[in-house]
């Protein structure tokens, strides 16, 4: 199926940091202001007080050490999902199924954690590994479907999200699987038993002081390690090459399906690890529940988008999203529904994604000078066109390879078959 690779590559090209320099920075300030202004307007229009809401967000998310404690609990899984999304987007295998992969990770973690009686922290390690592997394999299925049947990765990862949701629902509704055991005559809920203590992540610090869960440390280590790996290793080099030009990558000896598939699996595995964090850290109830993913999968993906697929930039963005989440819980007291933060987050993503793209487009359009109609950009030489010095007679067929035709042939390359 067309487009998977193209989508990711375009994304990569368009979200490339440094593309616009100060103009993008300035435009981002403007768009973020607009986004915040719109949010304030929404609150005011529905009878709330924007200032009170902002205060509540601040107080709930970052005003005190305990506020930070709850914010950081969200940051860890968000960051893991986001870093994984960076890896897959860079390879051109764009994964949007993190929400399901988070659940699969939690499912596998819960299964192992409740079924195996392992001593001490070993159980925790096995839970985390199980989550990692299960979600990696789950996302790997999409890679296999693409490799062998050409199924669009975006579509398959998206559809499999809903399978994952039903799998979890099935597991917690099925007594012989993971449904909680009946205690006396009590009512049985669709959830699993709580994980044993030795399968939970420990936190450092004491309430009301700052508590840092080991999950956060794990997430930070993963983010930094992957950032380094992407920038400095052969693997990162190949991944970049694959994302930017899969045909040349294959020509240069890259096993496209394998490398891209592994990138996808890595992305899934990290989402799964995030799921395990939701299960084993104090952010939830330490039980497998259908709604336990808390939209972390979707949000983590948005974090990566805002961070323009940069794992290191993902850290502050994940912190911002974590603060918004924790602060959202405090909104209700001001009469503003806590769901407001979801609106703010979505607007924020637009505010960060739009400027580099729009500025890039304006810049391409401007040199034509003439009265280009606003509906269609006039044909002008662009970074993707042949280099001007090649000769003014632009677009000789042999150099006309960066647009649609490439992606068409790329598909065949990915499948290892001629057109």
């Amino acid at each position: 199926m067309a487009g998977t690779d193209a989508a990711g590559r375009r994304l990569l090209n368009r979200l490339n940091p440094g593309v616009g320099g100060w103009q993008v920075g300035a435009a981002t300030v403007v768009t973020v202001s607009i986004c915040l202004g719109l949010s304030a307007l929404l609150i005011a229009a529905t009878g709330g007080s924007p200032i009170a809401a902002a205060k509540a967000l601040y107080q709930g998310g970052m005003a005190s050490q305990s506020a930070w404690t709850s914010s950081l609990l969200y940051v860890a899984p968000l960051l893991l999902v986001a870093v994984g999304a960076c890896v897959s987007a860079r390879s051109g295998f764009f994964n949007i199924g993190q929400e399901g992969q988070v659940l699969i990770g939690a499912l596998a973690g819960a299964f192992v954690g409740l079924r195996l009686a392992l001593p001490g922290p070993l159980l925790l390690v096995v839970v985390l590994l199980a989550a990692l592997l299960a979600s990696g394999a789950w996302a790997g299925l999409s890679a296999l479907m693409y490799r062998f049947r050409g199924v669009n990765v975006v579509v398959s990862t998206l559809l499999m999200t809903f399978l994952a949701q039903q799998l979890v629902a099935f597991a917690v509704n099925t007594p012989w699987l993971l449904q909680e055991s009946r205690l006396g005559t009590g009512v049985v809920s669709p959830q699993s038993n709580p994980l044993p203590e030795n399968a939970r992540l420990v936190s450092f610090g004491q309430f009301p002081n700052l508590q840092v869960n080991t999950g956060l440390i794990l997430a930070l280590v993963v983010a930094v390690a992957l950032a380094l790996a992407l920038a400095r290793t052969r693997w990162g080099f190949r991944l970049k090459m694959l994302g930017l030009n899969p045909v040349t990558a294959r020509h240069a000896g890259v096993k496209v399906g394998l490398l891209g598939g592994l990138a996808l699996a890595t992305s899934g595995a990290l989402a799964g690890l995030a799921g395990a964090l939701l299960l084993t850290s104090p952010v939830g109830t330490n039980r497998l529940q259908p709604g336990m993913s808390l939209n972390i999968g979707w949000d983590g993906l948005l974090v990566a988008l805002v961070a323009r697929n940069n794992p290191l930039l993902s850290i502050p963005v994940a912190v911002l999203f974590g603060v918004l989440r924790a602060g959202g819980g405090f909104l209700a007291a001001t009469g503003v529904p806590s769901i407001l933060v979801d609106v703010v987050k979505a607007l924020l993503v637009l505010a960060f994604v739009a400027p580099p793209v729009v500025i890039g487009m304006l810049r391409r359009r401007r040199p034509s000078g003439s009265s280009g109609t606003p509906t269609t950009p006039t044909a002008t030489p662009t970074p993707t066109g042949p280099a001007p010095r090649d000769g003014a007679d632009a677009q000789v067929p042999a150099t006309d390879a960066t647009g649609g035709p490439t992606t068409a042939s790329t598909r065949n390359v990915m499948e290892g078959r001629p057109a």
Partner: protein
Amino acid sequence: MDVDDQVTPALTLRGVSKRYGPVVACDAVDLTVRPGEIHGLLGENGAGKSTLMKILLGLVQRDTGTIDRDGRSVEIETPQVAADLGLGMVHQHFSLIEPLTVWENVILGDTGRVDRAAACAQVEEVGRRYGLPIDPLARVDRLSAGERQRVELIKCLRRDPSVLILDEPTSVLTQAESAELFGVLRRVVQAENRAVILISHKLAEIISATDRVTVLRRGAVVFQGETSETTPQLLARQMVGREVSLQNESAALGLLPVEAPTGGHSDETAAPAAASPPTPAPAGPPALRLHEVSVLVGGLPLLDRLDLEVAAGEIVGLYGVEGNGQATLGDLLSGLVVPDTGTVEVAGRPVDLNRPGSMHEAGLGVVPEDRHRSGVVLDMTIAENLVIKSLDGVCTRGVLSRRRMNRFAREKMTEFNIVAPSPDTPVRSLSGGNQQRVVLARELSAGPKALVAAQPTHGLDVGAIEDMYLRLRRAAAEGVAVLLISTELEEVMALADRIAVISSGKVVGVLPTAEATAERLGMLVGGVSH
């Protein structure tokens, strides 16, 4: 220069200029096209032909100058305006939409209600009138190159254009199909008093098919006159700007025509090849050997049990009309296509065709036909592009050394004359010639046993072409087996020791260059083996 001015020109351009940033694509171009003539537009790659035509078709807006259509000044703002003004173009590429049928393609771009019966009838009627038979209900992806060209022509002619523009129309056609095309054009011009602009870089075509000719060089008109009063040598000189004497230049410019096989020409062509070092006797296994290689798509063979051998130190030219399997062969040798049957051996050892990178490891270098597609990663730097095939050389236990990469890049930039500010320059910002040098530097520095160069001079300027020729010859002299895949006969004749002719995915004949006359090659290309 203007003669018999009684006729109002169909099209007059005065002082038309177009800049792309610092680059002047068209520089005060004057062009007059009269009804009833075939007007040749000749120029090198990069001379401004395409930009000029895009201006006429409303795809690009000019910066300055005026355009008169039948004596009235016009503004061509959109393709629709161009069509309304009776300007029609047959594009070289990207014009037909494959999953649609012939009639749907033909009416694409019209306005108003879709009337299938009328469209089909019109396709048949236009086809009959001009001798272009085609089934209007056929899906385009089931048609041959020649048939698609017919659809393009019908699509253009049914709009009754008074000025018909053809962009390199014969590049995918056999000689017979080309002859048929020019026959149709002649009919269009004489019987119906239309004007035809024929864009070509093939001198023979211009000489034999046009009435008048305009030569563009670096965006400016350098010559305009009656075709009958010029000679190929004169046109070539105008096009290049100096006397064409170098054999390889004339080759690059397509000066020596296949269609006009005078003995003298081919003898001259053969001479320098004979003067180059004598072909070494193939001892031991050939450096590159393809055996019974077939690639099938939907049951149709793109490559059909192709056999080919190249010895160390030899240049073999694989010549044929575009679209006879060269692209597939290039992809196959780049590891992008896996053949259905057959083997590829490098220095006597079979290569595992299923494993990416095995070609490179076996010692096969490739300068691909489309470097943007499979030769370079445009958004990576020169240094990065130079090591994409040999990452192990700059990695220690999987960790990349930027320092070693840059040192290597500096060396190669000097050695291969790659002009760029630094190794960190993105390849996207390089000229085509420099991009091609990056590819060649990478492939040759791996110490290949065999080198495949597919259309290595496409889109390059004369200087870069000369450079490429020099380096290919030098590689061969150093013992590399060079397979030159080219659609330019003259390029092949200038460089190759032996010429293999490819037709319909098969090698239909192999001749030493000295024995390759234009007639013999022409026959082979047309599929006649004996």
